[in-house]
């Protein structure tokens, strides 16, 4: 074989396919990647340090800005951490509202993530536009409930800030009616599309043991065939009351991650239907009236985690008994899922890098914090 000289090139930090400002130092031998080193930190905003200067409640809107696609999920993880620390009861109805919001978030995240993945493959914005169309409806719902489309800031300690407006449930029902058609269409468009299969099958394989070793989570881990879902493994909120399946892949390539996300949207819809069924009977208001927002947790630490659309999102908080966290740490799924990028890319072509990166589904706001 002809041996060519290895070359080191930069992909990013300013690159349309890096989902933000993210730099990869790639060593290539011809077109083949021999090494890849991810470089983080271009979007560092001092999130954790700022959080240690703020009171506990003041951090709630800051968590929106972590993974700006899924502000509701971030809110839930943070609220859960405080509730665990202080011992705040959450009324049943509030729990249902929370689950509803987070499952809607999961649908919109996956609709967007798949769109971006296809975009990265060169299908331009076609699928992205279809996905964004559905996402728009969900954002409209978020806006009517919380007042904002992306930075929802909807959760409070002990519940959510206000109950649903009267037109929310009818619109949600309409949306759920449209969901199967949307997911089926997405599958028809892409699942057996020869171009997508060429670009995705057998690309960016993350074997099971490596996935475990890197402690990745979310659809990336499930794509590698490990049925780990925090909603099942450690049911929080009211997730133990719903029937839903955990989709897993078999190979662990880009294609599997893609399929897992499609299936998860279906499962989220299933959960939402059950929420709608059970919500009218749920007791308690949208917030625990006795819950103080101005909390002063006892000295100690706490870790609370949820299954965010991107993986296991956890908040680790240490309290020194004052009104501000002594230490505030985010276990960001995007960040941890991104670490095996080098191993996933080694041996593939340069053009595959953006596809593999797209299949991990990252948001730099969460990676760099």
């Amino acid at each position: 074989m002809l041996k060519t000289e290895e070359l080191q090139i930069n992909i990013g930090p300013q690159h349309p396919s890096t989902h933000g400002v993210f730099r990869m130092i790639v060593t290539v031998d011809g077109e083949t990647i021999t090494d890849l080193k991810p470089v983080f930190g271009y979007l560092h905003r001092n999130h954790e340090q700022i959080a240690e200067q703020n009171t506990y409640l003041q951090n709630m809107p800051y968590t929106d800005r972590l993974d700006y696609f899924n502000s509701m999920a971030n809110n839930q993880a943070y609220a859960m951490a405080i509730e665990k620390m202080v011992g705040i009861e959450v009324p049943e109805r509030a729990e249902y509202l929370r689950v509803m919001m987070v499952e809607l978030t999961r649908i919109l995240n996956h609709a967007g993530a798949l769109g971006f993945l296809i975009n990265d493959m060169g299908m331009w914005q076609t699928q992205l536009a279809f996905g964004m169309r559905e996402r728009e409806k969900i954002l409209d719902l978020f806006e009517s409930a919380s007042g904002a489309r992306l930075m929802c800031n909807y959760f409070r300690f002990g519940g959510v800030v206000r109950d649903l407006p009267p037109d929310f449930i009818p619109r949600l029902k309409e949306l759920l009616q449209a969901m199967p058609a949307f997911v089926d269409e997405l599958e028809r468009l892409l699942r057996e599309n020869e171009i997508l299969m060429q670009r995705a099958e057998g690309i960016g394989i993350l074997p099971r043991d490596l996935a475990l070793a890197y402690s990745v989570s979310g659809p990336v881990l499930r794509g590698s065939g490990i049925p780990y879902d925090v909603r099942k493994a450690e049911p929080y909120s009211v997730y133990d009351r719903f029937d839903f399946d955990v989709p897993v892949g078999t190979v662990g390539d880009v294609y599997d991650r893609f399929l897992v996300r499609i299936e998860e949207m279906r499962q989220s819809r299933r959960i939402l239907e059950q929420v709608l069924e059970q919500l009218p009977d749920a007791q308690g208001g949208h917030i625990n009236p006795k819950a103080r927002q101005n909390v002063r947790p006892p000295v100690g630490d706490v870790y609370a985690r949820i299954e965010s659309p991107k993986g296991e999102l956890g908040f680790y908080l240490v309290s020194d008994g004052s009104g501000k966290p002594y230490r505030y740490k985010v276990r960001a799924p995007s960040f941890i899922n991104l670490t095996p990028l080098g191993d996933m890319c080694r041996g593939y072509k340069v053009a595959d890098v953006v596809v593999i990166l797209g299949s991990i589904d990252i948001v730099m706001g969460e990676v760099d914090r």
Partner: protein
Amino acid sequence: MTITIQRGEVVEVARGSQRRRAVPGMGLLDSLGVVWKHWRESFRQNRDFSDIHGTFTEQYPDERPNLPEAYRNMPILLFDDETGHEFCTSCFQCQRICPPQVIHMTQAKDTTTGKAVPSVAEFIIEYDACMSCGFCAEVCPFDAIKMDHHFELSTSDHASLTVHKQELNRPVSYYQSIAPTLWEEAKAGAYKKLQGNIKRRPDVIGIAPHLVDRIAARRAELAAAAAAAPPPPPTAPAAPPAAAPPAEARKLTPEEKAAKLAAIKAANTAKQSGATPAETPPAAAELSPAEAKAAKLAAIRAANTAKQAGTVPAAEVPPAPVDEKAAKLAAIRAANAAKQAGTAPAAEVPPAEPAPVDEKAAKLAAIRAANAAKKAAAEDNETERN
């Protein structure tokens, strides 16, 4: 390896089927079908949530976005349409909770005593750093700060994004127009607290700055009119029928109610004492001829003002900040002015004094009316002398 989980199962996702792959291009044709369908439907406006085709686009700026009530953009401060009183008491709650710390304020001070007054002297929000979290509106115990729906804030003038009280002030009617149900919930409590705070605000403190002059002028006018105005019965019906319905439709604030009550009581006392209220003010009988003349003059003037207030509301009332509301507002104000012209002697009673002591209060009101008339007369004399 099988894994059992509660309420659900682990499903392996099916990769592309072999059968289909045997015929190359099938998947692509399928995809093209989907794209074709979307393309064909893209000429149709469709905002039906249960459909996934058609364009969802809002033709902004030709078409204004339909914002939900809860929508929050930037905070604004509210003041009452009629009295101009700001709801904010400078309790510093919002300043304390604001996560990026962009709210700054100074408390108002009584100019004579130097004591703090439940009102705000200056209120600044740095819009450029506000994260639109809505906490300020949430914590405010007085419903003084609310989230606006106005979002077209882009400007090339950075300094203008440090917004002062003057530009933050909005009348309640504006907030009501953007969030009717939210205001409906907050209204009663907000006004109740505001009444309490007005009592502790001397002079024009707490009145929206751009209204101070107008309100002060109006107060002086009312006082003058009230001084010699005949008791309520003749003036109250003077309000034209067109203006009356809104006045009635509007709920009376506690203060107004108290004023009305006192006026009625005063009138009753006057009636009991034998005087015919429609013709002469009860106290006027004791006045010297010159004073009586002046009082009469003042009465005529007051009647004119009342008439004017009823008939030419637009000319009389300062233009309200929200244009569309102006007409309606003016009508309400005119009606109030007419009413107040009759009841003002009682309204002059410092609200701190206990109104419920009926007889005493009524007597007091009567005496006050007389005194005011006397004073007005004296002033008139002075002007005549000049």
